[in-house]
């Protein structure tokens, strides 16, 4: 019995170490990608300064405009990617805890995700 407990504990430790590494890459890639997209938008804006604007629009329209090459929309998508990075990190934690069958912490991570979702709905009001 204690042997099985030890095995379970070892397994948990291994998964935890993996989760650490996965979160490391999620955060790193998220930040690097968003900085790169912001820089791309800024470079495009440099060649087309007339497009400059201090305002942001609805998220979906902004993403569409970014794919059409609008420099301001690309900069804004960079900012939105940055804002999504911690949210993706929370989702990664949910999956990690689920894999470990750690229901209590899955529930806690889901609660955090719900608060973030709520904040987006409050913002949209």
């Amino acid at each position, binding site marked *: 019995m204690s042997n099985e*407990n030890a095995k379970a*504990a070892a397994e*948990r430790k291994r998964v*935890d*170490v993996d*989760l*650490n*590494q996965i*979160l*490391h*890459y999620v*955060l*790193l890639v*998220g*930040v690097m990608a*968003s*900085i790169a997209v*912001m*820089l791309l*938008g*800024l470079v495009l*804006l*440099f060649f087309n*300064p*007339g497009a*400059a*604007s*201090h*305002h*942001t629009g609805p998220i979906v329209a902004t993403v569409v405009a970014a794919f059409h090459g609008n420099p*301001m929309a690309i*900069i*804004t998508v*960079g*900012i*939105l990617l*940055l*804002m999504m*990075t*911690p*949210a993706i*990190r*929370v989702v990664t*934690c949910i999956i990690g805890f689920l894999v470990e069958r*750690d229901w209590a*912490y899955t529930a*806690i*991570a889901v*609660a*955090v995700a719900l*608060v*973030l979702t*709520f*904040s*987006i709905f*409050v*913002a*949209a009001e």
Partner: protein
Amino acid sequence: MVSFATFLGITVLGVAAGLLGAMVGLGGGILIVPLLTLVFREPIHNSIGASIVAVIATSSAAASTYVGEGFSNIRLGMTLETFTTIGAVVGGLVAGYISKNVLSGIFGTVMILVAITLFRRKSEGKIIPKDPDDRLGGSYHDPYLHKDVTYKVRNIPIGLVASFLAGNLSGLLGVGGGVIKVPAMTLGMGIPVKAATATSNFMIGVTAVASAFIYYSRGMIDPLVAAPTAIGVFLGARLGARVAPRIHTRHLLSILVVVMLAMAVQMILKAFGIEVR
């Protein structure tokens, strides 16, 4: 039209804030907001919006390193984030209803408190090793002490209250809130400084996001201010983390505290409609 001079100026300012912040252990937020409002005359709500975006960049980059090295306690971070995010949503909603003068005054006051705490020695409470099957407790390898440290997490309610307040501060003022969380974790919850700092950083990104969409939808995130600030602070913080171990930060800290107090006074004067340049 956009002035590229302003643009470069904001980037340089971001680099400076990130560099100084990383060298003395501050997130950039407490320096970004006063610099944007006092030097670039940006409206305070937009400055806070830009700071929130920049804080997500620096804390995520720092957290990526910490979590990879196993210093962050993911379960503890997740637990406390339930309250930092709720606090941040409340703070973000409230910020929209507070006039810029009052917000300047609150910011100046918080800045004075942060400046004072910079001088205090970072201390820990009693650290109790965790039980083998305790999931919330943490462990990490301390490269300076050359040993594995394990610790038990105590007094979770203290952590939750501190997290709610730190979230408020983040949503309202665009700062990370480590100034509240780290002492609560080290002195109140029995967590070693290294793990507390790493876990605080781990939580800051998620906390900032909880109010970021509120700022975004209110048009308080000006991309032409937020993007150069975020890029600048990110570069500055990376640079700062490299040079920090090689320089004496004591004198730098004294200078920074004087500068922070001066900016805090200006922010408070601004609250009363007095502009000093």
